[in-house]
């Protein structure tokens, strides 16, 4: 948009930023708005907004309908209808997981505590620099880690540290999922029980370490609870991730199921792989 002729030079700068806005609506009724603007750092950014409008009809009581038309008052006097972002915001998504066994929540916590207690006295040793932190948090990871992979392997073997043993095959540099490494079943402890110091990191680490199955060839109608139900019989499930299409929100045909125990996952893999479900044959394998 060119600046109006009569605008002062100070305004011109403002006008430069907000220019072309593209808007289109696709077959699914999703409106995409792309606008380019210049942010505080003076960089041009592309902002893509995808919105889907859904008209929901709701029958309400007459008095409720009448109240909707009330003029705002008090501190809201004169404000236009609709939620004011200053007072009303939408929080992050929270899952209310309902379970029939009241103990689930506590059990996991206790296990966690137990693990923590066990690890209290265990010495944590970095495989790269032998410091008392986790290998993944080593400050020398980038500089030492790569070139000396073989050397550290040897060192780790020598030191027979608390850390999990590396795969014996010579491919030291090839990444192997933690749960597929030799001692994952017994040795998943050292890095999973980080404790409360850095919740985010430890949670992610824990998740990555968990034995996870990849389930493919699921039908479109499958939902998380379905997957949960299917695998729950084999043992405690810590996480179910079902890939969904961003637009249509239907299942994309695969899911990841994380178990707490590796044995359970193994049993589930053997039992469910090749089984029919929703007129499709499921394929289950270890997630890579």
């Amino acid at each position, binding site marked *: 948009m060119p600046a109006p002729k009569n605008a002062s030079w100070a305004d011109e700068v403002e006008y430069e930023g907000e220019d072309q806005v593209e808007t289109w609506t696709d077959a699914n009724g999703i409106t995409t708005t792309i606008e380019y603007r210049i942010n505080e750092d003076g960089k041009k950014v592309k902002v893509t907004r995808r919105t889907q409008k859904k008209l929901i009809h709701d029958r309400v009581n007459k008095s409720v309908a009448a109240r909707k038309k009330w003029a705002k*008052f008090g501190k809201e006097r004169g404000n236009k209808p609709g939620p004011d972002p200053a007072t009303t915001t939408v929080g992050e998504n929270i899952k209310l*997981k309902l379970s029939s066994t009241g103990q689930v929540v506590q059990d996991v916590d206790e296990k966690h505590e137990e693990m923590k207690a066990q690890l209290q006295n265990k010495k944590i040793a970095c495989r790269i620099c032998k410091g008392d932190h986790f290998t993944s948090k080593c400050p020398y990871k980038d500089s030492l880690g790569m070139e000396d992979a073989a050397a550290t392997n040897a060192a780790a073997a020598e030191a027979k540290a608390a850390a999990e043993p590396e795969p014996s095959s010579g491919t030291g540099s090839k990444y192997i999922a933690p749960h597929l490494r030799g001692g994952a079943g017994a040795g998943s402890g050292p890095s999973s029980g980080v404790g409360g110091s850095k919740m985010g990191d430890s949670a992610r680490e824990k998740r990555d370490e968990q034995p996870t199955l990849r389930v493919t060839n699921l039908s479109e109608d499958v939902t998380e609870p379905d997957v949960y139900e299917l695998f729950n019989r084999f043992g405690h499930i810590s996480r179910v991730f079902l890939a969904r299409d961003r637009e249509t929100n239907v299942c994309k045909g695969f899911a990841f199921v994380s178990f707490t125990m590796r044995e359970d996952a193994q049993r589930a893999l053997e039992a469910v792989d090749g089984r029919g479900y929703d007129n499709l044959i499921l394929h289950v394998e270890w997630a890579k």
Partner: protein
Amino acid sequence: MRPILLQGHERSLTQIKYNREGDLLFSVSKDHVVNAWFSHNGERLGTYEGHIGAVWTVDVNSTSTLLASGSADNTAKLWDVSNGKCIKSWEFNTAVRRVAFSEDDKNLLIITEPRMGFPATVQIFNVEGGLEGEHSNEPEMIVHPEGPKITVAAWGALNKYIVAGRENGSVALIDAKTGDVVSSNTVHEATLTDLQMSTDRTYFITSSKDKTAKLIETATLRELKSFSTDTPLNSAAIMPKHQEFVVIGGGQEAMDVTRTSARQGKFECRFWHKILEEEVGRVRGHFGPINTIAIHPDGRSFASGGEDGYVRVHHFDDDFFTFKFQI
């Protein structure tokens, strides 16, 4: 579910309440203001201004025309719900702890606390005048109940009795005509923090600092069910529909909060199966203890107000309604 966060207060919430249809949500806090919200989208309808002290309690009548609030500035006020105008203010000797409209909207129960030599009072005012009528300055009934301080109260079925919860963990039935204490039962070990009636008022739920919430029959004050947790409780509510649940919430005392992380503080709304006394789920989100919980009368959403000054309105996902408890 995505909670809607309502930031209308600057201090901790003291009570929240849905109206009869559940389209409006009223919240009061220690910051002197009463807020009214549309519950479906969190839009603020307006504020009721006039109190000059922490507002402890709020209630709305069944037709959503009158709003009553009680405050630490020693007043209880009556408001016009639709425009925020104060239509009546009663002055007391001490702070007002609880207000409640009777089932027929004719009477207003007001509980004041004992302080500085003044005894606690249970007073009933006639509010039949509604929006236009005159409201008497004098209560229809006033009693100075003996015994421990009353912290919470509600009307029983058909306005015959007032159910009061006291500081020592006991609940008492007070005759609404004579003011006599008809019966009393010590159900909790510590002070009662909330008391909410079931839809038909034949039983109610209490929450207490002794870490338990209990279902109690109104007529006999007999304990029906008990929900035992690991944290002091500040509020409890009964799900009116869809699921046989109760929702209870609390958390570490506000004064101890700075010493713990949010996780250890246990600031979660806990869902318990009402009949089987089993915990079924939790909803986290508050940074501080949960002070008050209210459930939408149609059971499709609930709201919680916390020490952190936020009200969080949660609309349940579809799987909530299809959930079946497996024994």
